């Protein structure tokens, strides 16, 4: 002392080099293995996926009301609109049948604090691949004034295929992609 060589410490084992190779090797092997293996399959061999997704604004929950002259007179001049329409929208109800078996019935509430926004749906359905009879119904009016939108078709789904069921607001129809 005081030389650094004079410091006594636990000695490295006679096979320290071998130990180093094993430890570094184990670290490398752990990374190499678990960064690739085991391979992951999240859909079965003979399965296809149906995604039902749309963003659609339902019809108003009630009709617009014509305001009387007395009612209008009570309002400030800038708010005297002759008709008063409800902001709240109908929830959108979607039902999907595959081979005449109902696999999904979902009610999507309108978004927003005043329930005046669009209803959104995103659902995944795993179905066996092959020829499938598909029936989709969508209703967006609690007053049940209009007929629900419907689409029925028979499709040949190949394994691993993704079928998207969407709603085309412009065309007012259910579309399959």
């Amino acid at each position, binding site marked *: 002392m*005081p030389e650094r060589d004079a410091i*006594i410490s636990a000695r490295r084992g006679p096979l320290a080099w071998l130990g180093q190779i*094993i430890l570094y090797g184990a670290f490398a092997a752990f*990374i190499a293995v678990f960064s690739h293996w085991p391979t*992951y399959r999240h859909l079965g061999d003979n399965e296809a996926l149906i995604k039902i997704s749309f963003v659609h604004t339902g019809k108003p929950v009630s009709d617009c009301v014509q305001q009387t002259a007395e009612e209008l007179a009570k309002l400030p001049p800038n708010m005297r609109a002759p008709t008063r329409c409800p902001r709240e929208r109908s929830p959108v109800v979607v039902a999907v049948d595959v081979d005449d078996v109902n696999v999904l019935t979902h009610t999507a509430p309108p978004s927003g604090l005043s329930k005046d926004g669009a209803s959104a749906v995103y659902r995944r359905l795993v179905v066996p691949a092959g020829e499938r009879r598909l029936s989709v119904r969508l209703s967006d009016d609690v007053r049940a004034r209009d007929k629900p939108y419907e689409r029925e078709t028979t499709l040949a789904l190949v394994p691993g295929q993704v079928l998207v069921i*969407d709603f085309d607001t412009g065309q007012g129809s259910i579309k399959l992609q």
Partner: protein
Amino acid sequence: MQQEAASLRQRGLNGWQAVERLFDTALGSRFNPLRHLGAVGVLALLLLVASGTILYILLDTSVEGAHRSIDALAAHPAGRLLRGIHRYAADALVIALGLHLLREFLAGHERSFRRFSWLTGVPLIGFVFVAAIGGFWLNWDQLGQYSATATAEWIDALPMLATPLARNFLVADAVSDRLFSLFIFVHIGVSLLLVFGLWFHVQRISRPAVLPPRRLSLGLVCILAALALAWPIASHAPATLATVPTLLRLDWILLFVHPLMDATSPGLAWALVGCGFLALFALPFLPQPAPAPVAVVDPANCNGCQRCFADCPYAAITMVPHPNQRIGRLLARVDPDLCAGCGICAGSCPSSTPFRRAAELVTGIDMPQSTIDRLRRSLRESIASSTASRPLVVFGCRHGASTARIEAADVSSFELLCAGQLPPAFVEYALRDGAAGVLVAPCRECGCEFRLGERWTIDRLLRRREPRLRAAAPEDRLALALAGKGDEPVLAAALAGLRKRVRSMPAQPGLGSRHHHA
């Protein structure tokens, strides 16, 4: 219940330390990655930043071009090296992070003065995974498609967004080049947040070890490079949203959360992750043992030398103007919230020299639970009462090898709060007071509970750092053994060696022979 948990944690810590010692046997404690886990994580992050910068230059950030530009790297060894290092460094970062968290938890490092470091470390776990998962999307192969879709579906499980995020991955037309800007923001933006968070994480420690020792760094870089060349990262087929990627070579270290969600449900996966983070955040606020008493400054004995300020491992000491109002004179001030109670400051204080004539040794900075005065009195009494012809003195560490295992008639042992609490002058004092030899036993290199204790002890005794061992101190009667918990055989061997050495030495007047000192 609390005692059972503490006992379980202690058993876990014992097991961890046993593994650390096993690694020491092969690598040496200085180059043991288990003793540098935080720094290993930073090294991996640096590799990620360096390789990622080049990859970003080469990446075509478009739906059509991304896969092609990354896949082209596979044709060149340099490209394979670059891509492999980027991926494997991310894996190494997560492994280092997990082990670092486990080690600190087992050691009870979430509490008291370390609470800040713990709380600022927890969000980094989230940043690491978000940035890592976001990286897979940039390649836009089937694995990226699966990860992006699964992540969007997972986020949609939270009642947060009016429009499902997963609609961005419904059909090929939905994915635009603009979406890549979001991917890049997630991958690079969150990585920058991670670096910023790291800066916070090390704020309350002084001299943070940002990188591991050079030899260890080199070893790790070589391993990752060898891995990148021997087991290159290959892309999956380009993403096609019309089909589900079925067979994936998943990186389980980085992407395990997706299969977890598939196997359970998005809600349960959120619950598990959320509860995990909540538990980590709550740990420092659970009932804890009373914190150690903190260092106390005595203005009358503090000369403002700044040695304690320089040596404190947790930046708990600041220097303020001395109340005696002499121009330029400073006084140490201890922040009790940051003080670890290790006593390293007392060991660094020049007024801690036992040769002072005062009946009561009051030092400039001292530990109330284990004062320097008490150490001097105990040492004096112990040597005086020894009947051995050549008494030996051992200064050990409460967190290191137990000195109780080496008790003998000729041995007086003292367990300090940390070996760094020992002022080097005590070695000379013990020898002048009658000891034939002195053994100082700090913990193994890089194994100090208080980070710097063993380093400062070695440097002081090797005369590389103030307060230095005086030149007059007989070096051949001093032994320095690095003995952490479980290293009692090392301590015993060092003591046996010292005993043998001093027996062969002639008695020296005033040094090594019984000599009463005032």
